């Protein structure tokens, strides 16, 4: 499936969250990630993330889609993180 993950994390933990997310998804903007991911991997991403975040102070939202066929993605302004697999 396809996922978009956004987080709002307190300063001291941003770097940790970033590093973990980068293992699973493609960084597209500050605190925004996207990419193909399986249920199992999403679960292990959650596990890793929740181990460093504080449940009462930090927030993560994940939008998931069956696939990306019915979505359209446009960028206004500069493209910060590229999602192509041909680099």
């Amino acid at each position, binding site marked *: 499936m396809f996922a978009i993950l956004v987080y709002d994390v307190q300063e001291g933990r941003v770097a940790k969250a970033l*590093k973990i997310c*980068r*293992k*699973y*998804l*493609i*960084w597209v903007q500050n605190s925004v990630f996207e*990419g*193909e*991911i399986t249920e199992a*991997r999403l679960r*292990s*991403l959650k596990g890793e993330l929740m181990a460093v975040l504080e449940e009462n102070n930090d927030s993560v939202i994940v939008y998931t889609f069956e696939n990306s066929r019915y979505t359209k993605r446009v960028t206004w302004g500069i493209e910060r993180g*590229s999602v192509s*697999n*041909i*680099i």
Partner: protein
Amino acid sequence: MKTIYIFTNGTLIRKDNTLVLDTGEEKKHLPIENIRDLFVFSEVTLNKRLLEFLTKYGIAIHFFNHYGYYTGTYYPREHLNSGHLIVKQVECYIDPARRINLAKGFVTGAARNILHVIGYCRKSHDELQTIIENVKGFAEGIPKTKTIEGLMGIEGNIRDAYYSSFDPILSRKGFSYSGRSRRPPKTPLNSLISFGNMLMYSTLLTEIYKTHLDPRIGYLHATNFRRFTLNLDVSEIFKPIIVDRTIFSVIQNKEIVPEDFEESAQGLLMTEKAKRLFVQRYDEHLDATFHHRRVGKVSYRKVIRMELYKIEKHLIGDTEYEPFISQW
């Protein structure tokens, strides 16, 4: 899971437990959990730590030289070990009757898929009928063959006849076939065929890595001391439906034009732009899905893996191997 194709020079490193391509100008982070394999076409520096990291995740990395030719693969330590299956694989290889039986399966599959690909184009090209008859004629010889050499001969004849159909199918200026040439390829079409086949061999190698099969033991292509051969065998089945269709589409849609090739000492080479485009279309083709009679919606990549499982089943004496025949 994604295949990453690298055309940019840089250093590949393990950083923060993920993969990073440092190009000097920027650091591109590649999500390690989502990587199937890597194809490297550019100059890339890497170290042992990276190889260890790739091994941990079971990611093969295929290298291609400056001219785009296959250099080799870093094939991580086998992670799916099955002594039982290796014994079975070897048993099947050293028994001439069993070896040729399996090899015939590959050639039959290749022939049927070739017929499927040109049969589809026949609607608009009457002249293909004779070629189809020729291919069918050669294919009839497959069951009667007693030797691997004979089988290779038939395979060669089928392929020659098949490639001669490219001229009427494509009929684009600058892309006439005029005979197969390799090492070096002499025409743009030959250059595309060689490049595409090479991608296919590497893709198969990655998929074989994810099974218990040993890529060094092939059946149609003789196993010798240096090479992976099982990937060559199984590629025969998929080359027409994946590589050749990609070639048709990039030429017919004028995405690749004769100006995308340049003369060099190593033969006619594709420009980087053309290579990138071809790789993209090839990758899209592998991920394209269709409806399979038995399993429903699957991608071609999945079908390749299923083909390998069928070979495993054949080797352990479970179900007789039947090659994948495209219906769509």
